[in-house]
């Protein structure tokens, strides 16, 4: 089985372990294995500005360099924050010579120890952005191929109406991420169609859910999440599908609060794309971590299995 270097990031090891588990399961059903990096660290989550410009890029650079040094040129990640951070770091290293040199100055501080341990280790070379960072969804689109996925469906999600939710950092900033058009993306739509489900168009798919304001200003997040979810539900969606742990948190666990503030709001299930992928590929419903969802998903999941049985 093809092994693909995989960076899970912290959330997937803990609060979003069902995202990790479903992704691994789905990948193996599609014929590749998510091969977790050794001794990885936090990516830094966001690169804010700082006086020493490259300081915030060091952690993510180290992950990329270690990936390259282990002989791999492709790194797959799932969490939108990790994806954004790693991809932008890599972009800056590739684009800007000064950033590249300065980052390598930091990275080089690990050098003496390595040389001491493995004298035969290949000589130190600057990390110059050799690794290609891919979102798992991007991998599915560009490497596996949506057509190939469609061929392998064992439990097509026919009849299911799914609202794609992109959030912010999966697509933006466009010049550094370049995954899709930030105003008119189609990657999740393509994914939904590849699973045999129907796409629900609604205007809020790229609007922000509030991100970290979830902690500092929960009410703001509640209002934003309400707009997104009610718009999707209003267009007839059975569920929302996304990939970011933080978006998941805001859109799923916040629905209780939404119901309190906006009477008449009807809860709508939220899925990680990997969960639906795993199910569509014949995965076991007990392995998707549905018990961790705040909004009950059983209706939708039941319908997936029922659909299959009808056939």
């Amino acid at each position, binding site marked *: 089985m093809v092994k693909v270097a995989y960076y899970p*990031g*912290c*959330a997937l090891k*803990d*609060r*979003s372990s069902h995202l990790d588990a479903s992704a691994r399961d789905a990948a193996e059903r599609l014929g590749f294995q998510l091969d977790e990096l050794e001794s990885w660290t*936090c990516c*830094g*989550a*966001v690169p*804010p*500005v*700082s*006086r020493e*410009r490259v300081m915030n890029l060091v952690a993510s650079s180290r992950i990329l360099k270690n990936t390259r040094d282990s002989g791999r040129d492709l790194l797959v990640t799932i*969490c939108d*924050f*990790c994806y954004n951070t790693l991809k932008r770091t890599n972009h800056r290293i590739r684009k800007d010579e000064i950033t590249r040199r300065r980052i390598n100055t930091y990275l080089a501080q690990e050098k003496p120890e390595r040389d001491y341990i493995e004298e035969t280790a290949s000589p130190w070379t600057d990390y110059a952005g050799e690794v290609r960072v891919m979102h798992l969804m991007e991998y599915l689109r560009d490497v596996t191929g949506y057509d190939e996925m469609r061929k392998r469906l064992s439990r097509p999600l026919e009849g299911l109406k799914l609202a794609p939710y992109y*959030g*912010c*950092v999966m*697509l*933006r*900033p*466009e010049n550094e991420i370049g995954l899709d058009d*930030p*105003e008119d993306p189609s990657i999740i739509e393509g994914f939904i169609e590849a699973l045999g489900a129907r796409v629900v168009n609604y205007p809020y798919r*790229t*609007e*922000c859910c*509030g*991100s*970290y*304001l*979830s*902690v*500092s*200003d929960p009410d*703001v997040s509640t*209002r*934003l999440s309400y707009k997104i979810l009610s718009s999707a539900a209003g267009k007839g969606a059975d569920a929302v599908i996304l990939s*970011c*742990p*933080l978006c*998941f*948190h805001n859109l799923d*666990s916040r629905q209780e609060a939404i119901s309190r503030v906006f009477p008449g709001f009807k809860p709508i299930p939220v899925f990680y794309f990997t969960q639906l992928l795993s199910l569509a590929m014949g995965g076991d419903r007990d392995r998707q971590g549905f018990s961790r969802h705040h909004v009950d998903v059983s209706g939708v999941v039941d319908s997936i299995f029922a659909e299959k049985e009808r056939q």
Partner: protein
Amino acid sequence: MSKTSLPPPENLPMRLTRDTVSEGFKKRVAELSGQNPDSCYQCGNCSSGCPLACEMNILPSRMMRLVQLGQEETVLESGTIWICASCFQCTVRCPRGIDIQSVMDALRQIALDLGTDHFGPDQVTPEQAATVPQPGLVSLYRKLST
């Protein structure tokens, strides 16, 4: 006749000097963010599309204008910088290619350098600490606390 003291007028004129409009604050913002605030021609696109605009007391485009004019106090006291969720919507739409999100980051940084966290780890409830995914907590600390 009784002499009543008048309340101070609410809308004092901005004081512009060579320093406020060219040096100091604007330069710091430019250096930190790597952006040129003077590129902004006030089209307002950032404000139009900002998902948090209705939560802000000063719209992003006005923040850019205030930075151009070196109005440090008004900018740093505005709640806008703490409401911005760094979603990059403004950045991708700016016709002049200004990374407005980075300007917001820079403003937050300058405000935090004055010494107080806007929202520090001690304000996070144990329930939040236990449930919010790490990227949310990490980015929150990095953006809103020193």
